[in-house]
């Protein structure tokens, strides 16, 4: 695959690989056991990520970001995918949606996020609104120059408690040819405002050191100037960001699968049973062949989506296909790796069981496999009027 990369991309990959191996991987097992990343360690990772220019690598250079194109970002996510999200999360990629900040919002929200002085929650998902985002219940109602927000959000993931939320709330109903449609608006809501409560979410089996939070809003008052982008256009704003999110998850799946495959090969070549390395048995070697082939295919789907995004021609199904295939691929690779390791694969002494648990989440977050299939099939059938 190297032949597809520029010299700069190759150097970027080797720098990030070294960063992941030296700064993040040594803390994987401990933070997984703890269920969080200790504050000091988190700060140390942020500091190093800033020094290396990896922090906010997705945002334009003009505002202090890394200015990376999508293909380079995909390679970056691929390397970070080899470790856990709890640690990777500190090398933060602020929501591109913050680029919609205007006027005072730029100094107050966008720039501090680039400098790691502030951090955002991306608050979209609700207990009753997961894949079906339009069943959102959180509402904001106009009151003079202010908006009054009520509702709740959950599965809001972040390595640390954030300083403000990019909150999506219903602000009205519009009539469309296909019937009434909820209008969603994005707001910048500072934590600490009266009525804004934050609780830790339940412990998760996957990505244990990555926290989730539950946010609730009880008559939280924000001025009109806290609207991000345009009133009623919140989902349009989120759309592009969510689409690229699928490509980043897919890229991370490829990194994780590469690490798992490496572990599986190592074990297959060294573990002896019946007088020979277990890799000599086709039951094992054919698994390895399938794993490597599927990984290559997923990598190509990710590169296809990222390169098309750079050219401005990425379609919904490009991102959905990459996410669907890569997430399901890493699930199979992880399962096969456990099988090749046998009982040892499930022991906490080795990283295999953790990677296997972590990989399970990839078929769910940033759009379930079912949603990706829906997007892909819609792109096939819509042109035929179905």
């Amino acid at each position, binding site marked *: 695959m*190297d032949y597809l990369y520029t*010299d*700069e991309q*190759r*150097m*970027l990959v*080797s*720098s990030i690989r*070294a*960063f992941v191996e030296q700064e993040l991987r040594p803390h994987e097992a401990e933070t997984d056991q703890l269920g969080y990343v200790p504050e000091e360690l988190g700060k140390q990772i942020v500091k190093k990520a800033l*020094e*290396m*220019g*990896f922090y906010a*690598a997705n945002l334009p250079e003009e505002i202090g970001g*890394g*200015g*990376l194109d999508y293909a380079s970002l995909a390679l970056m996510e691929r390397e970070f995918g080899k470790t856990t999200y709890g640690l990777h999360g500190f090398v933060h990629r602020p929501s591109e949606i913050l680029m919609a900040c205007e006027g005072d919002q730029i100094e107050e929200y966008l720039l501090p996020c680039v400098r790691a002085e502030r951090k955002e929650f991306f608050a979209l998902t609700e207990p009753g609104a997961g894949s079906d985002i339009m069943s959102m219940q959180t509402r904001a109602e106009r009151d003079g120059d202010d908006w009054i927000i009520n509702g709740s959000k959950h599965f809001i993931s972040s390595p640390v408690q954030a300083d403000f939320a990019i909150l999506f709330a219903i602000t009205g109903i519009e009539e469309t040819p296909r019937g009434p449609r909820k209008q969603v608006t994005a707001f910048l809501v500072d934590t600490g405002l009266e009525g804004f409560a934050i609780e830790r979410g339940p412990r998760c089996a996957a990505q244990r050191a990555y926290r989730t939070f539950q946010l609730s809003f009880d008559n939280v008052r924000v001025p009109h100037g806290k609207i991000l982008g345009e009133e009623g256009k919140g989902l349009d704003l989120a759309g592009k960001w969510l689409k690229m999110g699928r490509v980043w998850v897919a890229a991370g799946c490829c990194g994780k699968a590469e690490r798992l495959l490496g572990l599986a090969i190592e074990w297959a070549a060294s573990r002896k049973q019946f007088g020979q390395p277990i890799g000599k048995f086709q039951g094992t070697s054919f698994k390895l062949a399938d794993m490597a082939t599927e990984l290559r295919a997923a990598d190509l789907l990710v590169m296809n989506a990222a390169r098309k995004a750079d050219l401005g021609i990425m379609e919904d199904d490009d991102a959905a296909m990459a996410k669907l295939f890569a997430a399901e691929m890493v699930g199979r690779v992880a399962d096969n790796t456990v099988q090749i390791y046998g009982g040892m694969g499930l022991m906490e002494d080795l990283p295999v069981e953790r990677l296997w648990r972590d990989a399970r989440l990839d078929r769910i977050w940033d759009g379930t496999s079912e949603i990706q299939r829906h997007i892909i099939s819609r792109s096939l059938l819509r042109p035929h009027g179905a």
Partner: protein
Amino acid sequence: MKVLIAVKRVIDFNVKIRVKSDNSGIETANVKMSMNPFDEIAVEEAIRLKEAGTADELVAVSIGTAQSSETIRTALAMGADRGILVETDAELQPLAVAKLLKAIVDKENPGMVVVGKQAIDDDANQTGQMLAALLGWPQGTFASKLEPADGTATLVREVDDGLQTIQVKLPAVISTDLRLNEPRYASLPNIMKAKKKPIDTTTPDELGVDVTPRLETINVVEPPVREAGEIVADAAQLIDKLKNEAKVI
């Protein structure tokens, strides 16, 4: 002071080396290549000299095929200022490399040349010493500490019986040992800046250097597979085996 750093493109240290089936050499096709780790240490040390204000310009030189420019680019991304590629497809042996480096030194007039003590491909450990001899310069080899001051450099050398501290007059050739420093990895802004840093290309012909190999490789074979050890019952049996089987005492 201008510092010249020599960087070699070698098979990555993580790659398992395979001998070619015709025993003419080792397999290099489709193999991951990287900068020689000792040369990374040389680059890092030169960058530290620049950060400390001792050096003002760092020039990274690589000799080899066109792909060696990738290795120079890595040095530039770490912090070197410009690069020189001596492009050739010929087989290069230490003496030829030392002569080429001398030709570059004659043009560039650096105050110091920093090289890795050896390259991890052929482990020759000769180029730095040969270069110093050709230049008639002092040499400080296997440096694990380097402190230049007022026309001299004090360095600590790792030698067989411990650590030796010496002082050399500058200009000098310094070769780096493993414990001199821990090389940095390139930051994203520096990777982007490296794109714009210049790399000049020249050839052995242009430098007037004959690189014809003086040594001929006849056969390359895998090292013999090490046999498993044996546990002996007691000291008496050990001595017996050493005397009568291994015949070493």
